Every structure is written in C-alpha cells, then in structure tokens.
C-alpha cells in the first residue's frame, strides 16, 4: 500500500473562510454556555469581529494572490484573485447585513423569540413577554457567510456542492425565523428549502456526470478532458459532459436567481425576515455568481467550439429571459419586498450579460457589479426594516371625557407599496437614501449602479454580444419604471394610510398572515395599555384603533448601514476608480 502523505495546508490561504466558520462554531458553543442575558452582545461582538477579521485576512492575502493562485489540498480550496475578490464582496455585504440583523427598531429585533414555537400559541406569547431572542441567528449567518466564501474558491466540484449546502442550509433556517408574519416566513422557508434542495440535487447529479466523463471532480482535470487530453474511458462522451455542465449551471443559476430558476426568489424574499433578505440577496448572489464564473470560465478553456456554443446559447437565453421576467413581472408588483425581489432577478440577468464572453473584462465587471448591487440591496432592505405599521390607540379617559395621549404599538413592516406613500415627508433622509439605492439599481448615472451596468454592458459588447447588451439596456429602461414608481410614491404622493382602519388587514395580499401577525401584538397592546386600567377602557379602545405607517427613527445599527451603503453607492458612482482598479486586479480567475 502506498504510504499516506499528509497534505501540507497553507493555513493563511484558508484563513478568511476559517475565521468565519470557526466563529460560527464558537457561536454555537457560546449559545449553549453564555447566559441568555449576555448572549446577544457576545454573539454580536463575535460575529462582527469574525467578519472584520475575515476582511483583514482577505486584504492581507490580496497581494499574495496576485502573484499566483493559492491551491490547498490539491485544489479543494483554490484561491484565485477572482475568488478573493468575491470573498471580499461577500464579507463586506455580510458585515453590513449583520448590522441590520442586529438592529432592533422599536426595541425588538426581526426574529421570532422562539422560532420553534407554534405561532399564536401561549408558549410563544410567554416567550415574547419574557423578551427572549433567538440569538442563534448570528452563528447561522456566520455559517452561511463561510459557505459563501468557500463557494467561489474551490477547484473541486464536490467542495462546490458542500459549500452550496453550507451556505443554503442556514439560510433555509433563517428564512423561517421572522418575528411577524410567521406563517409567511415558515412557508417561505419551506419553499426555499424544497426548491433549493431540488436545485442542489440537480447540481450534484451534474457533478456525477462530469465525474463520469472526466474521472475527476477537479475543474482543471475536467477542462483537460473536455479538451481531449484526459485518460478517462468515457472521455469521448461529449453528451455526458454537456449534460453535466448544464445541470451544474442550472444548480448555480438557481442560487443566482436567474429565470427560469427564479420562482423562489419573490416568495422567499417576501417571507424571510427583512434583514435576512438583505443579507441573502446581496451575499448569496455574489457567491453564486462567483462560483458560476469559476465553473464556466475554467471549463470554457477546454471546450471545443460546439460545446462552448451550446453553453453560450444557454447563457444567452437565460440572461435574456431573466432580464425580461425580472423587469416585466416586477412592474406589476405591489409589495416593496417583491419589487426588490424582482429587481434582484433582473440584476441576475444583467450580471449574466457581463459574463457571456468568458473574459477577464467580464469578470472584473461582474465583481464591481456585485459590490454595487450588494451595497444598494443591503441598504434598501435596511430601509424596509424601519418603515413600520404602528397601531395607535387613543385611550379615552372615561372620567374626564377627553382622549388622552394615544398609546402606540409598533407592528410589522409596512411592505405594501400603497403604505409607502408619503414616507418622504416622514423621514426625508431615509427616503433620500432609499431613492439613491433605487436609482443605483436602475443604473442612473452618478450612482454605483451605472458604473456597474456600464462595465457589464461593455464586457458584453466587447465579447460581441451586443444584442444582449441592447436587450439589457431596454430591460434597464423598463426597470427604471418600477424603481421610479416607488420613488414617486415616497416623495410625491401624499400619505393615505391614516384612513386605513384596523381590523381589516392593511395588507390585502395576506389576510391570514396579517391576522396572525397583528393578533398577538394587538393582544400585547391591550396588555400594555391595561397595566392598571379598568377593563372597560380596554373594550372601548379598539374601536378607535388605527394602523398608520411610521418610520422608526431610533438610531440603530440599521441607520448606520443605510448611511454607509448610501455613501458607498454614491462614492462608487462618483469616484469608482480605485475600486475598479481592485476589480481589475481580481479579474484573473484561472491560476
């Protein structure tokens, strides 16, 4: 038997991922050992520290990677400049995302006190009143981030698969943990899970076919086999290879959220707790696109003209379809989170446009695009978390016959577009930031989104895919419509929500969800009000109860995130030079 040779591991190269995952593990341990009172702060420090550490590690590795890609354990972990670039984007977005997660607008975070409790049960109510918090969220976010960082940094398809699962599984769980609209949230998690696991099954079957074709799961080896240099007995079966490539691409496109694999996106984005949605939208997309680039660009080296053409046709179709679906369906949405979800689909299409040429220009453009999109998205969802419904109950004072000060209870997010009317008057700065994010997503010049789209379309034109670029341009024009519609609503339309009476759910789309949502909280309101008041007051009160839209102005981490993202979006729009340089450096994707 051959002697076993222990591999030498370049720990420095793995450090960004390692720091994050180790912190995740440590977080679980802390969750078990630290008393509940201190958990949140400890977890927060750990999480932010780990992500900051990962960022530092990425920065330290940057120079080293430029010289040569770092390969660990024979390519199971392969750090290319591009991979490192994606890791940087992921970490930055995750850092911002975690801050939003940590925010407690109105004193409560966005997560269920105990996600396992049956919605509406006594037990849940007890937990809520005890002020419990599900601090497991932080380790979960860390695990997901770790998976995302691993995703684009491997040469090994099975590692790719595992990274996919490591990033997906925590996200499935996170989706189910919303504090309000829990049924919606659980449903979103179930859908995400079922479709997600379906996609990963497709991916792994594709991997199996590629393994059969090349006799290896290393991308490099597969590319060689495609080029006809492999020694595999099945190397002649190009059908196997093409089917494998397409299945893997399908799995990856699912995570990217490209049509026709986009069906989960709107539902999941709507149902998941908003901070998680922001995190997920920004980071997952970045990681998945990174992996897609890694996979396709490497294999494209070895493909013959026919296979390559086949893959390109698929990419073209998907990109076109994605842009069309994202923009056209997005136009008719009435829920802000769904609007953002469809926008994310459309963006997936734009990113795909950038990479059809399999060129370094494309890779650089993709990186910049991911960063620009990530900042805008995290920021936008952070804004969504603070625009809330408020239940106002004027408490009539029976003795004096006059209504005293109204008592307020903060409800869930006001996600229906109609409720966003006139938000601009309530919170001008927040609205300005949100408008900036939307304009950036629309690709209006002087924002990051424009430079990003410019890069993406230039890459496409450069690769000769100018019809795709034109289509992208047209899609952007349509997309502008729905972004601008939201801005109009916020800035130009007077608020109309004062007229919405309580009782009927203000959110017409989801009566049941709103019921379970408002139910316990309304009860809580009654409790809060009824501290020492006679019951008569309580029974009289609901008649005057109204739901209004409010913007939580308490300065929390989310406000910081919004400010940072807005600054980032503007800065990337006005002075993108240095970041573009970095993206250019990171565009080398093949060792």
């Amino acid at each position: 038997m051959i002697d076993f040779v222990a591999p030498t591991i370049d720990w420095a190269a793995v450090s960004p991922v390692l720091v994050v995952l180790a912190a995740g593990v440590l977080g679980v341990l802390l969750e078990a050992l630290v008393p509940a009172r201190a958990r949140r702060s400890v977890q927060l420090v750990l999480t932010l520290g780990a992500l900051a550490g990962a960022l530092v590690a990425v920065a330290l590795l940057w120079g080293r990677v430029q010289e040569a890609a770092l390969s660990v354990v024979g390519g199971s972990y392969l750090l290319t400049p591009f991979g490192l670039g994606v890791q940087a984007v992921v970490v930055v977005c995750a850092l911002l995302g975690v801050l939003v997660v940590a925010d407690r607008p109105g004193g409560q975070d966005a997560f269920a006190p105990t996600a396992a409790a049956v919605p509406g049960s006594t037990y849940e109510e007890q937990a809520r009143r005890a002020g419990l918090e599900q601090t497991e969220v932080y380790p979960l976010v860390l695990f997901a981030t770790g998976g995302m960082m691993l995703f684009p940094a491997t040469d090994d398809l099975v590692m790719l698969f595992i990274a996919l699962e490591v990033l997906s599984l925590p996200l499935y769980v996170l989706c189910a943990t919303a504090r309000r609209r829990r049924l919606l949230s659980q449903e979103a998690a179930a859908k995400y899970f079922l479709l997600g696991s379906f996609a990963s099954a497709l991916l792994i079957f594709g991997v199996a076919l590629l393994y059969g074709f090349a006799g290896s799961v290393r991308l490099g080896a597969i590319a060689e086999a495609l080029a006809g240099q492999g020694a595999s007995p099945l190397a002649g079966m190009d059908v196997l290879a093409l089917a494998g490539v397409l299945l893997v691409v399908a799995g990856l496109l699912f995570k990217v959220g490209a049509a026709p694999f986009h069906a989960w996106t709107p539902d999941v984005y709507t149902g998941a707790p908003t901070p998680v949605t922001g995190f997920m939208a920004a980071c997952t997309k970045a990681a998945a696109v990174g992996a897609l680039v890694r996979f396709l660009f490497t294999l494209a080296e070895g493909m013959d003209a026919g296979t390559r053409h086949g893959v390109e046709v698929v990419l073209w179709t998907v990109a076109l379809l994605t842009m069309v679906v994202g923009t056209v369906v997005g136009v008719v949405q009435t829920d802000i989170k769904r609007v953002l979800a469809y926008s994310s689909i459309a963006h997936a299409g734009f990113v795909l446009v950038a990479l059809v040429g399999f060129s370094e220009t494309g890779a650089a453009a993709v990186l910049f695009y991911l960063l620009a999109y990530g900042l805008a998205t995290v920021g936008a969802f952070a804004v969504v978390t603070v625009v809330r419904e408020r239940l106002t109950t004027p408490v009539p004072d029976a003795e004096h016959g006059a209504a005293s000060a109204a008592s307020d209870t903060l409800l869930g997010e006001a996600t229906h577009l109609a409720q966003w009317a006139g938000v601009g008057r309530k919170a001008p700065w927040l609205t300005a930031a949100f408008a900036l994010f939307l304009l950036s997503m629309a690709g209006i010049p002087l924002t990051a989104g424009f430079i990003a789209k410019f890069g993406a379309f230039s890459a496409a034109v450069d690769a000769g895919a100018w019809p795709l670029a034109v289509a992208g341009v047209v899609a952007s024009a349509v997309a502008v419509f729905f972004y601008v519609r939201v801005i109009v609503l916020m800035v130009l339309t007077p608020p109309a929500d004062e007229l919405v009476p309580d009782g009927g759910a203000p959110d017409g789309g989801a009566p049941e969800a709103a019921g379970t949502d408002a139910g316990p909280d309304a009860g809580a309101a009654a409790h809060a009000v009824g501290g020492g008041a006679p019951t008569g007051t309580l029974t009289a009160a609901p008649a005057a109860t109204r739901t209004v839209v409010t913007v939580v102005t308490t300065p929390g981490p989310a406000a910081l995130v919004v400010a940072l993202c807005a600054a980032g979006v503007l800065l990337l729009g006005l002075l993108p030079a240095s970041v573009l340089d970095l993206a250019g450096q990171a565009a080398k994707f093949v060792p």
Partner: protein
Amino acid sequence: MTFPWLTALIVWPLLAALATALTGVGRGRPAATGTGAGRFGGTAARVVALAGALVEVLLLVGAFTAFDTTRAGEHQLAETHDWIPAIGASYAVGVDGVGLLLVALSVGLVPLVILAAWREQGGDDSRLRRYLAVVLVLEAFMVAVFAARDVFLFYVLFEAMLIPAYFLIGGFGQGAQRRYAAVKFLLYSLAGGLIMLVAVIALYLQVPAAERGPRTFLTENLTGLELGTTEGRLMFAAFFLAFAIKAPLVPVHSWLPDVAENATPGTSTLLVCVLDKVGTFGMLTLCLPLFPEASRWAAPFVIVLAVVSILYGAILAIGQSDLLRLVGYTSVSHFGFIVLGIFTFTSLGTSGSSLMMLNHGISTGALFLVAGFVIARHPARSQRIADYGGLRTVAPVLGGTFLVAALSAAALPGLATFVSEVMVFLGAFGRAPVAALVAVPAVVLAAVYVLLTYQRIFTGTVPAHLGGDAAREATDDGTPPLEDTVSRTREDAPVRDLDARERTVAGVLVGALLVLGLVPGLALRYVDAPGQVAVELVGESDPPPVLGAQPVDARPTEGSLS
C-alpha cells in the same frame, strides 16, 4: 493654473441648492398649510436661491472675461482630471463659443425662473423650497453637460439630468396629468439615453485595446477613429436617436407637449429652452465630429425629419387650445430649424443653428414665462386659450411683452431669432434648396399662430370671470393678488397688470431679444468659429454662395441684416 471657472460654475449651484434646502432645517412656526416652513421661514429659501443664482451669473461674467473670443472655435477654460482611469473616463470640461453661450443661457435663465416662481407651488413654502433647490441642482447639471468634453462624462450628466428634471415635472407640475407627463418624459429620454449608452460603449471599444488609456473617452481622442461603415452608422443612429428625443424631432417629440402642458412655466423654460438644447448641442458636438461619414450619409433623412418637424410643429401649434401646449409645439417647429441648420454642413447654417439655440432659449423662455403670468391671472389657472379675452385692455404691459415674445417666435426682423433663422435658411439653400423652400411656409404659419393666439387672448371682450368690464376699477383698489388662496375662487376676480417682479423677468428677456436682434454680432463672435470647425470635422466644405449670399467670413454682412 487659472481659476477653474467652469468647475466653479458647476459646483456653486450645488452649494446654493444645499443652502436653499437647509433653510428648511428645524420645525419653524406652524404655517397655515400645516407643513413647517423651517426655522428661517419661507422667504429665506427664495432669497437664498435667488442670491445663489445671481452669484452664479457673476461667475458667468468671470468666465466670459476669461474666454478668448478670437479662439472661439477651440475649447477654452479647459480642465482635465482623471476620473475613472479603468474605463478611460475623465473629468474634462471646457467650452467653445457655442458651449459658452449655452452655459450662459442656462445660467441666465435660472434667476428669472426663480423670480417667476416666487409665488408658485400653491403658497406651500416647503414645497417651493424643494422646487428651488431642485432647479439649482438642475442648473449645475446643465452647465456641466454643456461643458463636458468627455463622452462618458457627457453621457453620465445627460442621464443624471433626468432625475431632477423628472422631479420638476412630476413633483412640482401644475397639470392634472403631471405624473403621466413626467413618466413619459423619463421613459422617452431614458430609452434614448440607454441606447446611446450601447453606442458609447461600442465607440469606446473601437479604440484599439492597446491605445486605451485613462483618458480614452475624451472627445478629441474619439474623434477621427477609423470606423467601419456599418458600425459608424449604427452608432450614429443610436446617438442621434437619443439627441432627437431630447431635442424633439417629429416622430419622437410627443413627450414635449405633454410636459409643456403639465409642468410649471418655469420648469418648461428650463426644460425646453435649455435642457433640450443638449440634444441639438450633442448633434453638433458629438454626432458630427465622431461620425462624419455617417452624418453625411444620414443628412438627407435628417433634413427631411427636420423639415417635417418645422411644418408639423407649426401646423399643430395653430390648432392648440392649450396655451402652454401651443408653446410646446412652436418649440418642436424651432428645433426643426436648429437641426436643419446643423445638418446643412455649411458654416453659415451651423453657426446659425448655434445662434438659434441661444435665441430660441430666450424667446421661448420669454413666451413660457409670460404665458405663465397670463395663466396666473385666471382664477382657476386655466390654460385654455378660449378662457381668455381682452386682456390687452386690462393688462397692457402683459399684452406688450407677450406680443414681443410671440413675435420673436415668429422671427420678426429686429428680434434676435430673425438673424439666426435667416442664417439657417441661407445655409440650407446652399446645401438643400428644396428643403429650404419647403420649410419657408413655416414662417408664415408661425406668424399665423402667434397672431391668432395674441388675438384670442388679448383682444376682444374680457370674459366675466376675469373681471369683465369692471376690471379696471377693481385693479386699482389694492385688492390682494390673485395668488392668494382666499380670492382664488371669486368669480369677479379682477385682473391686474404685471407687478415689479414680473416686469423684471419679462423686461430682461425682452431686452435680451431686442439687443441680440439689433446687435447680433455680440453673439455671432462666439458661434462662427465653432460652426466652421464643425463643418471641417464633418469633412464638407461650404458650398458656393447661392442667392447672392455673401461668403461666410463676411461677418459684417450678417450684422448689417439687423
């Protein structure tokens, strides 16, 4: 290093806008409208904005002094800094004569617009404050876009301008359909702009990869590229489409009347008189030099379009019942003239067009603003021409200024527009006599719509809701101005003549029309050389003189026409 006049001109309005917005800081005393007017009250915003705009005018004067008219064909006051080296874009500003005139137009009109808007926005101070701030932001963009010497920068500003413009139309308009108009405007412009984006990218990629540097996007670097015929024509088409939408040429003009109808007159002034000049300015400074071959190839089509625009705009203007919409259609007609002049490829036509851009701005601005004054006098602010009559008798100054402004739209000799229109005609006769001949009736049509409108509004009997015959007495007894909400619904509201503020606005514009009409040389010094440069760049030479016109360099001849 000389003083960066252009950068100052760009940055100052932004600062002024910020200052204007900041006057709203704090709750202020609760105003009647319920919205806080800010700690400094409502007037502060007006004063700050006006002062900012006036300082900007001073800066403009400085820029003029620094501009060397003997080299008007070259870009002067130039500044170039790296901006995004990775994609070859730089911050490069500089103006030739035409650019400078258009900058002047923007800077000059803004204080007038601010002054004209003094009592607008329904007495809502915070709304007015925002309006003024946005106007100032738009001013910065307009100056920057006329000064941009980098295609990428130009494009960025070209698109970025849409956002403030959109808010001006949709947010502060007065028409019932203002949001529809705003969206229409935005989508038209964006569609054109985005198609242009593809061409911008494609153009950039025509530069051989080895030669792409941090300043590739500079206009001079992109000029004279070896383009394939098809590529060149496609890119030309994309650029031209964007500019044609902006400077409304006929098939894609339909947003303009809607906007004119629904926006405030001030907004329309900025939009139609300045912003849309970006379109023709772009044709002149980008389409021609970048794609000479394609320009020559497309010239016949463009000329046809231009002529159609001229006639179509004029004819439709006659049929309009809405005053502002009518002004909008006259502009369509005028833009036709400008485009016609540019695509004659004669230095006479080109410089005539350049001049006409300036003159049209002043003339149409005057028309819009004065029309705004007219409308402000209607108790229900009706824009229907049929709702007016006999105003000449009750408001003679108003009638007079309107008449001058209207006649300038019809290019009456002695007014500024006449010079430029004649130059365009002369240029067109040299290159495309048929087109010129076909366009000539437009002059007659213009006279028709101008006079017809004047007649319907200012002559005849005063309708009852404008105060009827008793109006003259009522005007003098010091009743509060019509703008006040209290008197708005009164059936017998009297009509008073222009007050000092309005006289200032109208006076400046009418004065400018007269001065430029009588001494066109003042402006011609700036447009002649760029016109020649443009013709050279497009690879044509001036045709032999036709119809006894003097050679191009005989500038005194042009002057003598006054």
